[in-house]
């Protein structure tokens, strides 16, 4: 019988949101039974000790002069990286730094302290990452399947989508109808409320959160939490340039976007100009 893959899940400077997100994975029990979880900061496991492992999962950012398990955090991570075959960075903190410090692979836009280990790293950013993304990365390694990664080591099967894809407010985006206010079903949050969906790599609106919803569906803008820029300033306000959003959808030239927006705006969609649900006929 071949032995189970050994997994160490270590925490840097974090809020444990990645762990709590993972707990919502519907098949968590089946997945954890497939591996030998040697250490996890919250789940029952043995006391921490340095040892070889097949998969190292890192949650949280790195930072100088920060103690973890009585070790200097950066020395701890460095030792563990050298003892592991594959590394999954989960969460924006761990990939890029996020709110709390530097990432393992990147420090925001720049190369991070452990960039030289890029070949054995898989990036699963998100604040938090979706539980299915974490499980997917683990399963792909367990099953020895090839992952197609982008240049920031994010699996394309997840991160080639934008969080805009699948948003229920897409019709409003098509016809350039902005939300007049928060707290309403109608309107797209891209024009005023700061939604970063059209240029954020993630599949939030494709696979949905907790199997039922997403932030934009609940009227909250996408904050681009899977990106190296997270959290930018003025998260609830769209930065504009000459009256149009300064950041436009991925893959479109500014000119093409302006032309399309102008045409869509001039051809009114009367149905969408009204409230979706009222007593009118």
């Amino acid at each position: 019988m071949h032995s189970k893959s050994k997994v160490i899940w270590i925490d840097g400077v974090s809020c444990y949101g990645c762990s709590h997100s993972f707990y919502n994975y519907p098949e968590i029990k089946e997945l954890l039974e497939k591996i030998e979880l040697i250490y996890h900061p919250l789940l029952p496991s043995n006391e921490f000790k340095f040892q070889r492992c097949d998969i190292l999962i890192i949650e949280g950012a790195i930072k100088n002069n920060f103690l973890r398990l009585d070790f200097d955090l950066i020395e701890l991570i460095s030792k563990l990286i050298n003892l592991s075959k594959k590394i999954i960075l989960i969460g924006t903190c761990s990939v890029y730094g996020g709110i709390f410090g530097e990432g393992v692979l990147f420090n925001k836009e720049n190369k991070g302290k452990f960039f030289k280990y890029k070949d054995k790293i898989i990036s699963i950013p998100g604040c938090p990452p979706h539980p299915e993304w974490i499980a997917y990365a683990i399963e792909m390694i367990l099953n020895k399947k090839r992952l197609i990664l982008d240049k920031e080591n994010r699996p394309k099967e997840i991160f080639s989508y934008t969080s805009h894809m699948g948003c229920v407010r897409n019709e409003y985006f098509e016809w350039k109808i902005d939300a007049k206010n928060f707290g309403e079903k109608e309107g797209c949050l891209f024009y005023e409320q700061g939604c970063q969906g059209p240029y954020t790599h993630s599949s939030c609106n494709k696979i949905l959160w907790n199997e039922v919803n997403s932030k934009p569906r609940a009227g909250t803008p996408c904050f681009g939490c899977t990106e190296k820029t997270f959290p930018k300033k003025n998260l609830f306000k769209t930065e504009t340039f000459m009256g149009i959003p300064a950041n436009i959808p991925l893959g479109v030239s500014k000119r093409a976007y302006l032309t399309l927006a102008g045409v869509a705006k001039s051809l009114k969609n009367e149905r969408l100009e009204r409230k979706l649900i009222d007593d009118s006929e």
Partner: protein
Amino acid sequence: MIVNKKIITKIEGEATLKLYKKNEIIEFAQIEFWQYRGIEEFLKNRHYLDACVINPRVCGICGHSHLIATAKAIEDALNIEITEKAKILREITLGLEIIQNHIKWFYLTLYPTIKKIDFFKAFEFSKEIAKIIAIIAGQFPHNSYAIPGGVTCDLTNLDILKIKNSLKKMFDKYQNVIDIKGDSKDLENLFNGISKELGKSINKFLVLGDNLYFKSNGDVEFVKEEQSISFNKNVLYKDEFVEVGPLARNLNNKLIKVIYNSYKDSIYTRIFARIYEVNLIFKYLLKIIDEININEKSYIKPKNCSGTGIGIVEAPRGSLIHKVEIENEKIKNYEIIVPTQFNLSNGTKNKPSAAQASLMNENEKFADFIFKCFDICAICVSH
């Protein structure tokens, strides 16, 4: 006297517990948190709405309480009233966060200190509870649907129906953990061979929040922070250490009162109050969900742009305080006091905090159990 220093893990974050003992009996205990993440500094000069995204990231398990406290603090600062509908929705999501927290704590954190248990039980609840939060708030953990002025969602009756059905289902299922009469096989099994008198504490209770069915018994004006031996500051109320949390805010419940009268503030009473509170919250949520008027506005745009305010909520672990100073829509100052600071302050042998007192004069083999019965959130402390 022997001093034993131990790093406590499997709490949200890490702490050091220093036990001063004679033979096996703990004479005194000190608790140290040594981490700092700098959230309050991070908020400075940002637009106040950014706090609704940053602050939930204080904590992965109780971040929603931080969100609601943030919204309330800003609303207090800018003189904002919100609709009944928005209030009820916030009560539901906050109540649900408390529920998932307690169930995870019971099976994942507390139980393993004494006995082996199928901890996946916790997830059978928590992932369904998270799903109900997500219907309202978009996702869990880390949503930002409560903003100063109300909530971002605009639910339909289909959503309300789904929420109600799920609430009922989860409430029924929870009867297997502890039923409404207070019977719990898992709790009795946990205390099998352990005295229910274990870990009595200071017997002083404080409730500052008035969300859900909780009633405040104090005034935030008397809450003071002071330097301590560790990174975190001590928190006192009228110069005394107090206990906050589920036991404090449920002492007016008949059933909990009966247990309190028998065992005082032992860890049995504390644990009972915490897991029984889940039933009381479920009942309350099932009542208020019928009071939602879907036609009310979800959000009213704030008018003012400067002011100072305080937001208090009863979070999973007790009273959580956020203070904000806003100038021209920008955050000038932000301050957070978390429940764990109240319960785990570092007092002296003569004037111990709640957690210290409950450890004193007990056998060290129970140290982990007693310590964790306070449901420590080190990560909140190191905001």
